[in-house]
Each structure stands twice: as C-alpha cells, then as structure tokens.
C-alpha cells in the first residue's frame, strides 16, 4: 500500500505532536497553518506543564493529578481520558526532556517543579516563564527534522477553508487558501487532523493571539455538520494586563512563586464572601487586603481560575478596585530577587507594556478571556469499551476528521487547571496521530476513489462565497462589527451571565448576523487582502458566538467557568451532562446532552477554603494504560 498522507491543520503543540507521531509511524503529513508554525499561539503559554514527579518527596500520585483535574473542571470531564492523560504525563515530560527542551533545573540537575492553581502539589515543570514557547520550539525542531527527511510538507500562510468528503462521507482532503495570493487550492489526503486552537478573538480582546478566531473549527461546524461540545465553558484567566490591543497574560506562576493579590482594605464596606455567601467587612482601611487569602485560606492565591476570577470581580464590583478602576494588585515585590528571576520573562512583559517595574511596584491586573474548554466533539472510547478498537479516540463525528488540542472539548470539563493545557495539547495530538494512523489502516481502501467531483464542488463553493463577499457593497465595516460582537460577548456571555442577559446577547448576535450581509470591503484587492480574509472568517465567528451563547442560555446551573445569576449552585441531578451542539441553517443551533463518565471519582462540592492533603484511591483503575509516546499505542 502506498504511504498514507494526513493533512494536519494547525501547527501549535497539538498539530506538531500529531505530525511527529505520524512521521514516526511512517506517514506523510501536509501541515497547514495560517502562520509559520513556530509562531503558533502555544508560544504564549507561560507557566508550565503538569506531570506527577517522584522527585519532590510530596507523595503525589497519578490519581491525585487526575482528581485535581476533574475536580478543577467541576466534574464535567469524562474521567477515562483525563486519567489516561495524567498517567501519560511523565512519559510526555521524558520525551520533551530528550528532545532538548530547556526545563529549569534543581541544584542537582533534575527537573524543577513549581506549584500551580487548584492543587497542593509541586507538579508543574517549566522553562522560565515561557514554557509554551520552549515546548513548541522543541516540537518544531523535531518536525523540521522530519521535513528535512521528506516526511512533512508545510503549507504555512495557508488557511483551512473546507473539508472535502467522499461519497461515503469520509474525509479525503481540504480546500485551503493562500493568505497572500488568496488562491484556493485543494490538498488530497487519507485523513485530516484539526489542531486549530481556541477562539478567544470572538470576545474581541483576550489573552489569545490574533489568529485565534476559532474560524477553522467553526467552518467544520457550519459547513460539514461537525458537533461542538460544552462551548459555553470559556475560561477567564484571573490575572491579565489590560491593554488597548489585547489583555496580556500574567501567568499563574507569578502566584505559584509566591505572588499575592490584594486591594486596599475599607472597614466601612461590606460584601458577600464568595466562598460561603456570608457578609464580611472588606479588610481594614489603610491596610492591604489579601482577599483571596481571606476568602479561601486553604488555597489562598492559588484557587482554581474560575474561582479567582469571580472573586476579583466581586471585589471590584464592591468598589474596591485600584484607583476606582476595574483592576487589582498582583504583588511580587516581596519576593527574593532569585525568585523574581524565575519570572523574568513575564515581569519583562509587564514592564515593557506598562512602563512600570513590577519588581518595585505591584502590578495592576484584571481577569480576561483566556481558554476555550469546549470545542469540537470527539469520540473517546475507554479502554474497556467493547468496541474500543472499531472506534477511534479524538475522532470527530465526521469520519476521518480528528481533533486535538484547544479546538476540542475533552480533558478540562467546566474549567481548566493551570499548566494542564500544554499537557492536553501534546497528549491529544499524540493520541490523534496514533489513532489516525490506525484509522487509515482499518479503511482497507483508497478514500479518494469515490471522491469524483467532490474537490471541484468544494472549491467552487468557496469561490462563490469569495465572490459574494467581494460583491457586497454595504456600509458596514467588518472590523467595527467585530468590536460590537466582542463587547456583547464580554458584557453578557463571560463572567456575568443571566438568562435575560443571554437572551439580549442572542438578539444582538442575530442583528449582527443580519448586518454582516451588508458589509462592504474596505480593500477589494486580490493580494494580501487581510480585510477580506477576516470578513470570510467572520461569518463563522458569528455562528460560533451564537453556539456559545445558546449553550450558556440552556444550562440552568453554575458549574466551573459557567456561572449564572439565579442558578448559583451546581446541579448534578439535572446538569451533570455534556452539551452537544449541532448547527442548523437559519435556526438556533440544536442542543442535546450526553451523560458524563464519572467512573473513578464521585462528584463532590469543590471547596478551596481548606487545604487537606489526602490519599486518593481509584477503586477500579484501568487494567492497562497505553503509553502514548510508544509506537504501539492503541495497537
């Protein structure tokens, strides 16, 4: 049989991991990316990557890592994938160590670890404060090596436009666009892997890179009927630097290394303690009020992200924001210079963009949209599923289309723990690569036979949409529409959600969808036309925004990142289930629900007020967990 070819869309950690895996298994890869892969958004991850270490002397365990992840996600994540990911984390770290990622070291030369949010253990390995960049570079180097061997063909500065399916519905390639010449071309392959990242740009300003529009996954959702899952769960990171162009992340590692969050106290003011609803006095006038430590004495500044973000908003809502504005202090001025050095990369960012030295003056920060927990629905048969080997992990509901990384919904439930994203991207990418190869072997036929006319048809559809956009002569400016869309999403669909607000948001989104029909491109050129490229994406951005708002409107409870006024508690009886979202043309998206696999840990209330280290035992651990870095995974 001829060597099989896979098209990987996206060259961040997940896409590069999948590519590496496929190259090791002898497949050829077309790697498609809107940016040179070395500039993917993974570079922005600062703090680190979680994996249990036996070197810290803390009696940490795989079970505890899995438990922290599941509890952090408010029990919405299916537990088998999380368990296997945590089990594999040390193997992923070993691989990264071998490929030369420059992790920080202890005095004796072993990997150093720091503590991150939502846990009591030091299990986060890191490279200064630019861990994502260093991990991405490590994988980029290995993929470049495979490229030099002729196994990988890169199509950088190319944007995914549409999946092509044969008459049996199996993916057999894509249509892509050269973002300089705007030319539409096709790539034929035996399967497609999506690793297209999150969608923070929907919210206007976020901590995301500018290309994180979510348009690729949304195209799959709208054009091809791919299902989305848990789209309503959007992580708001508690600490970002507000800016005119974006919110710059200030890593959790600043708190992991001892940074403290505070505002000036005010004895005259009272507010509800978000931990228990009791009315409390807002510190002491003239003294620093370390409110996270006051609300959550057990975890202090390292509570889970959703909890920290809501606490900060509660404090600024009470009128305690620094200088009366929406901002609080994040203070690292008391840390030893040696500790500050470990945070050099992020402290430099703060200084560069604000002009103030955070080593001397406390930083001013505020929560910002950060991570997309939901995303493309993927299958994930557990090890003991009877049909385990006839199904494929990480495969979407479209045959032959896999997804990995932030664009899919597994692993994080309703809220992601810090330093689990790099892990899930690499783990998901490797699993997708391995399972994709097994899928191609299982096909026993050439997917291209039976694709007569499919490529021409797909290309023609894209060309027609392009001509449609160029021919619109309305007054609306797509960038200004985006500004409006971002504002309504921030105001009504992030931290403060209510059913009335979400209804208003949906109305506004429908209006934007209508007004979008009347845009006019400010650039009608056929070369490097960035306005056209964004206008094309915007159609899908709107549909994705509607899916997010609709799923949030339907979920009448508060869980993880989704907190709704009037439904303040988690409601396991009615809502311990995964939202599954299907696009319907000219109608609201259809939402149904899947049950959650909670086989290892029974849902309990999240409590970060007490720090209790206790042994966690899984009653029925899997008999066998395959190692994802091994060639035999899933065989």
């Amino acid at each position, binding site marked *: 049989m001829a060597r099989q070819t896979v098209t990987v869309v996206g060259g961040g950690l997940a896409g590069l991991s999948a590519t590496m895996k496929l190259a090791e298994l002898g497949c050829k890869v077309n790697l498609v990316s809107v940016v*040179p892969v070395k500039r993917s958004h993974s570079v922005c991850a600062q703090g680190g990557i979680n994996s249990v270490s036996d070197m810290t002397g803390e009696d940490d365990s795989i079970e505890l890592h899995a438990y922290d992840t599941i509890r952090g996600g408010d029990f919405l994540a299916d537990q088998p994938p999380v368990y296997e990911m945590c089990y594999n984390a040390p193997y992923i770290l070993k691989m990264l160590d*071998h490929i030369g990622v420059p992790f*920080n070291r202890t005095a004796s030369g072993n990997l150093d670890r720091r503590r991150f949010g939502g846990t009591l253990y030091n299990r986060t390995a890191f490279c200064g404060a630019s861990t994502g*960049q260093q991990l991405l570079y490590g994988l980029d180097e290995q993929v470049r090596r495979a*490229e030099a061997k002729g196994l990988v063909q890169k199509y950088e500065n190319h944007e995914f436009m549409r999946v092509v399916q044969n008459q049996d519905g199996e993916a057999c390639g894509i249509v892509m666009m050269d973002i*300089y010449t705007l030319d539409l071309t096709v790539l034929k392959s035996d399967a497609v892997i999506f690793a297209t990242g999150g969608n923070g740009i929907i919210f206007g300003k976020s901590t995301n890179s500018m290309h994180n529009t979510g348009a690729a996954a949304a195209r799959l959702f709208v054009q091809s009927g791919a299902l989305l899952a848990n789209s309503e769960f959007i992580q708001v990171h508690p600490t970002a630097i507000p800016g005119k*162009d974006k919110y*710059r992340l200030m890593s959790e590692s600043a708190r992991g290394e001892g940074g403290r969050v505070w505002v000036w106290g005010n004895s005259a003011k009272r507010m509800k303690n978000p931990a228990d609803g009791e009315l409390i006095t807002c510190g002491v006038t003239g003294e620093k009020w370390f409110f996270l430590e006051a609300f959550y004495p057990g975890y202090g500044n390292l509570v889970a992200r959703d909890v920290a973000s809501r606490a900060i908003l509660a404090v600024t809502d009470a009128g305690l924001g620094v200088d009366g504005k929406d901002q609080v202090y994040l203070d690292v001025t008391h840390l030893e210079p040696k500790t500050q050095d470990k945070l050099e990369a992020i402290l430099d960012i703060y200084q560069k963009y604000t002009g103030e030295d955070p080593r001397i003056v406390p930083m001013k920060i505020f929560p910002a949209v950060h991570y997309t927990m939901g995303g493309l629905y993927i299958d994930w048969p557990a090890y003991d599923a009877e049909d385990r080997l006839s199904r494929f992990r990480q495969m979407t509901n479209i045959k032959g289309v896999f997804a990995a990384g932030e664009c899919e919904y597994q692993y994080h439930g309703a809220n992601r723990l810090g330093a689990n994203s790099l892990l899930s991207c690499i783990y998901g990418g490797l699993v997708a690569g391995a399972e994709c190869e097994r899928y191609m072997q299982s096909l026993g036929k050439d997917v291209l036979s039976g694709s007569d006319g499919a490529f021409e048809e797909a290309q023609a559809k894209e060309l027609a949409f392009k001509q449609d956009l160029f021919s619109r002569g309305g007054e609306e400016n797509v960038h200004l529409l985006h500004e409006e869309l971002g504002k309504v999403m921030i105001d009504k669909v992030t931290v403060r959600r209510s059913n009335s607000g979400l209804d208003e948001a949906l109305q506004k989104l429908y209006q934007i969808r209508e007004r979008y029909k009347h845009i006019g491109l400010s650039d009608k050129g056929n070369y490097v036309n960035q306005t056209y490229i964004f206008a094309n994406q915007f159609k899908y951005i709107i549909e994705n925004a509607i899916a997010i708002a609709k799923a949030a409107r339907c979920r009448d409870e508060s869980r993880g990142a989704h907190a709704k006024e009037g439904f303040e508690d988690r409601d396991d009886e009615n809502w311990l289930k995964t939202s599954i979202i299907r696009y319907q043309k000219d109608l609201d998206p259809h939402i149904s629900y899947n049950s959650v696999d909670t086989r290892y840990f029974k849902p309990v209330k999240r409590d970060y007020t007490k720090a209790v280290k206790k042994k966690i035992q899984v009653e029925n651990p899997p008999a066998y967990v395959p190692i994802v870095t091994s060639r035999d995974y899933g065989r």
Partner: protein
Amino acid sequence: MADKVILRIYRGEPHHQYFEEFEFTNTQNMNILSALMEIQKRPINREGKKTTPVAWECSCLEEVCGTCSMLINGRPRQGCSAIIDTIVKQTNSNVITLAPFTKFPLVKDLIVDRRSMFENLKKVKAWVPVEQMYAQSYGPPIDPVHQQAMYKASTCMTCGCCSEGCPQVNSHSTFMGPAPISQVKLFNLHPVGKTLKPQRLRVMMQEGGVSECGNAQNCHQVCPKKIPLTEAIADVGGQVSKQIFKELFSLPER
C-alpha cells in the same frame, strides 16, 4: 503625552513603494500595532482620503512569537512592544516612520517573506537527533547554569531583527545571519545534540557561514530577546577553527 501622532508608513508592493501618512489620537500605553488596528477600522489617510488598510503581520502581541517585525524609525524591532509614548519622548517628534524589513523579499506594505530563516535552521540541523519519542527515563541531569545558557539561546523567535540590523546580510552576500549561528552553539551544547556538531560546523565553514560575520555587533544591540549573539558567533568561530584543524589532521570526532 502627545495627543496627535502621525504614522508615516512606507507601503506598497515590490517596485512600487510609497509613503502614506495617518494621524490618530494617542492614548496611554498604546503601541504601534494598536495604532495599525485603528487604521484598519477606519482606513482614512492624513489627507482625509479613503485608502486601503495597511497590511502587516502580528500574532501574539507579547513579543514571544516574532511575527510583527518591522523598521520603526529605522530600527528593526517588534511592533507590539514599541510603545508610542516612549518613542515620541525619545525622539521628541510626533512623527513615527514605519517600513518593512529590507533584507527579505517584500510581500506587501509591512510584510516580508522570512522563509529563508526557517530554511537556515534546516541547513544547520537545529535539532536534537533523538532516536524515538518513547523514553523509559528522563535524560541526564543538567547543571542549572548550563540550562540557563541554553534557555537564553532557545528564546530566539526567528524574528529576523538580527539579520536586518547586520551590514553583512545584504543582496551581495550569502551570509545566513546571526540567528542560525546561535542555534549551532545551542545544539552543540546539548549532550545528544552535539553528535551532529561536525556536520553543523561544516555548514558554518561554507559560504554563508560564520566567517562572513564582520563583527559590527549590531545583532546583539537589536535582538529583542537580548540573546548573546556576538558571543555565540565568537564561540562557533572558535569551534570551526578547531574543526578545520581536526579535519586537516584527520583526528577522530570527539
């Protein structure tokens, strides 16, 4: 804070470049990219005429991706970390000139094609030749001081500022620029990476290699990550000399 700031942008396509000016209101901590975003939303030039938005590239906006390189008042740097207030104060002028890099093929407006930089990384085999992805155990311990040096070199984001600033990189030369040389040093330091050291050094001996550095030391000045590039060039130069000597006397690889 200067209220009105003028961006004078050298834009256009190959063989047809021209200046166009845009005026906007400066607000606190605004950077060059946020100004370009404003132009994108309202593409009207200083003469009040409708024009096309300026094409430029950006991605992370936090100076870790290397995308938004451009010449700002003639200096190669990242647009995202160029704070307008600071520039106005330093130059005592409210006119800021933007231009695309000149050492790479022009695509359009502020965008150039930097693919050659990634090709160079391929040439110098900037990777660790691991046998397989699976590993039973961690790699050998690494001294923290050693790690710090590797980390610094590894923060190179292939932005191209060093090449743009280097007088030896020009249309008459094949010099691959400082960045790949620093990567040679990095991978020659790594316990497994150094198995390819002779191969990397042979590339360094060839045309376009380390001997074409003219020691202007601009690279270190303009590197946004302050990577010790001149030190790396000197080191690799030394390694090359030793390699030549070894090969001359056919000494075994070490």
